[in-house]
């Protein structure tokens, strides 16, 4: 564990924070969980960086580096990986998975870490809002008036042939989400946050 130095000054405390990686920081179970959820041999990553190089979300667009998440997974750095807001920047385009020379699926590792994070209530607000939207409309990004006008202009029906046209299928989606308590948790976390 990082050694705590008592400076009695929050700014100094942060500045001089012990950034060493200690043996005790590692949770080997984290790697096992990631492997199980992602169904890929995350431990086999040899850190070539092809994933980051392929990533459309990577620098300069953001500080997101998928290679570092793979590394933290291998080292069992659970807290760091799950608390890093960059975890949520993956667009799941799967370019890294296509190109990984060790035939791993870094995208699925990220998804596994997101799942593990959600279990301990670490999840950005916009993702929770998306959960609510899917629950209520069957769409992460529901149709809106601008879209409807554009569709009509293109000669399409105003609503696509999804739950927008067939709202009778929404309860089916809700049943699945209820099974995983997604809506319930999203509502709870958002409510706690707004308190």
């Amino acid at each position, binding site marked *: 564990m990082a050694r705590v130095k008592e400076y009695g000054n929050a700014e100094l405390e942060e500045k001089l924070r012990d950034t*060493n*990686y*200690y*043996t005790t920081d590692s949770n080997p179970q984290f790697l096992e969980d990631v492997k199980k959820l992602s169904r890929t041999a995350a*431990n*086999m990553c040899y850190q070539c960086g092809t994933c980051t190089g392929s990533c459309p979300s990577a620098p300069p667009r953001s500080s997101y580096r998928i290679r*570092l998440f793979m*590394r933290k997974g*291998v*080292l069992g750095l659970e807290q760091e990986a799950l608390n890093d807001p960059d975890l949520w920047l993956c667009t799941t385009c799967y370019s890294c998975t296509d190109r990984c020379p060790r035939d791993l699926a870094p995208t699925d590792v990220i998804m596994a870490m997101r799942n593990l994070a959600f279990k301990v209530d670490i999840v950005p607000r916009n993702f929770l809002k998306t959960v609510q939207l899917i629950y209520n409309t069957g769409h992460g990004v529901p149709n809106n008036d601008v879209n409807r006008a554009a569709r009509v202009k293109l000669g399409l029906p105003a609503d696509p042939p999804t739950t927008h046209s067939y709202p009778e299928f929404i309860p089916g989606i809700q049943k699945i989400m209820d099974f995983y308590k997604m809506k319930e948790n999203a509502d709870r976390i958002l409510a706690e946050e707004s308190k």
Partner: protein
Amino acid sequence: MAETKEESRIGVFICHCGTNIAGSLSIEEVKNYAMTLDGVIVADEYQYMCSTPGQSKIIDAIKEHNLNGIVVAACSPRLHEPTFRTATEEGGLNKFRFEMANIRDQNSWVHMHDWEGATEKAKDQVLIAVAKARMLEDLQPKSVPVEHSALVLGGGVGGMQAALDLASAGIKTYLVEKAPPTVGGRMSQLDKTFPTLDCSQCILTPKMVDVGRHPPNIELKTYTEVEKVEGYIGNFTITLRKKGRGVLDPTEALERGIVGGGCNGCGDCAEVCPVIKPNPPFEMGMAPRKAIYIYHPQVMPPLQYTIDFDSCVKCGLCVEACGPEKRAIDLDSVDTFEEIRVGTCILAIGYDYIPIEQKMEWGYKQFDNVITGLEFERLICASGPTGGHLIRPSDGQTPMKVGFVLCAGSRDNTGGVNKPYCSRFCCMYSLKHAHQIMEKIPGAVPYIFYMDIRSFGKMYEEFYYRIQNEGAKFIRGRVANILEDPITKNLIVNAEDTLLGRPVSMEMDMVVLAAAVQPKPEAEKIRQMFGVSKSQDGWLLEAHPKLNPCGTTTAGIYLAGVCQGPKDIPDTVAQAEGAASAASIPIHTGEVQLEPYFAQCMDEICAGCGMCLQQCPYGALDLVEKNGRTVMEVTEAKCKGCGTCGGFCPGGAIKMQHFTSPQICAQIDAFLLKGEDN
């Protein structure tokens, strides 16, 4: 200046070497310049002079223009002198009527961006070569017969393989091993070998047994050193010192008239021996050894004891225990000398670890639980001091977290004990160690601190993949220092995880240093005896790093194994087979041709002072009586043509063939006077 005996008719041939030469200087200008030179009848150029059409140009020109000297301006004589000499000979000239101007390695490659300068220099080089070509004489190479036997120095896996190959090719081979009284070398200390995880002893012992069972072709001489080397390719005379081992084998006993006597390996002597010392060479000092000992159970020659006279107190208890029938022990045994004659020699003298304790930051020999890779091998080996149970030296506990420090002293340019080169097998044996820990100790985790994992060989990368999959942790970063918890004796390893970009500070139960390797201390002496050069890092120097990795610049001496540079077992065996093949060629040919560069004494000038005798590094000169005068005589086969005597002779009575004073003076004059007056 000396007179030319005949009219010079010289052909100059300039090679483009693709763009290697033609890309940096004007071939056309050099060619036109050559035509203006005195004695040059024809000048020509071609894209690749060494190709068949290129050589044909030389052959045809000799016939067409009745040439008597050939100059080729191309690459280095080391590369293509033999090629062009052959062409000269095919054209009907004596092959020593050829001179080479190195306008590639010594010109176009160094002056790549100076077109004019390079062209001018090439002209000078051609001018100088033509000056010598005008003075060249016919010379006849000397043939000497080759002794039908070979010496292999070093009884490790490389030496054994070379000896077995030579013996199988029908050549009498002396396999000489210096220190331990057995063959086997480093490989017999190892537990398993990467990447196949074969038991090292299991794959080695058949070879050791073969070596012992190959009489009369292999004569095994263990506990024996080379004392003196004389002679030259085909005819080396080697003096061997057989160290007194204090114990007679049955044959030696019979020679002394003790019928049915000699050591049978019963071990009664070791039981009574009161002297107990650590066993440094084999068990890395981690197990006790008596003053009378057997090196390890699989020794070859088999079951023979040896007395370590450095620690023996000569109490005589062993003599009593051995009894009056066997009478195998001779406490007054002394070194004996023997001369052998061989045609070629293979050096396979192996390596040592660097004194890694001098790298204070890693704490070897300060902290109990820091060990080296070879110590790890003994600790994990079933026949080792712990019976194959890996334990912490400090408390005998089983380590659960083991750190491996790669590049411990390798790839380090700071001098001292550090080595700038890659030791080449540490990555792979550390991966193997990691596997062995995970295999033998459930739940144990190896942490490998590395800069690069160099898994270059066949099935090596796959082995790396396997070890990573088994759960070994890889941390990319060189270990900065190691500290010890004085109470638990655990080790704190400080490094940076350069992949994560942050420092790490990890507590380990044990740390294994993959220490760099270096040439053996005695390599220097052996090198000088055999006249072999060394590279800047001390390893014995091969004749060419790519095209002649087994040969040396001394004819008849070949290299095998790590003594030439770090290499793993497969590479060592491959090089040994290569060296054996190379060493058998002169023996099977039956004779070798020596370059006729030897010194010649001009008897009418020689004053017989004999001062040159001391100068000669090869002992090739003698004083003899000729026509009532004392003059010097050269043993041509021994002379290497170094020119020491020729340069030294106060009377100028020694002529160096192919490098005569008139030839060299003509070259100097040509350069200084630029052909103005000669």
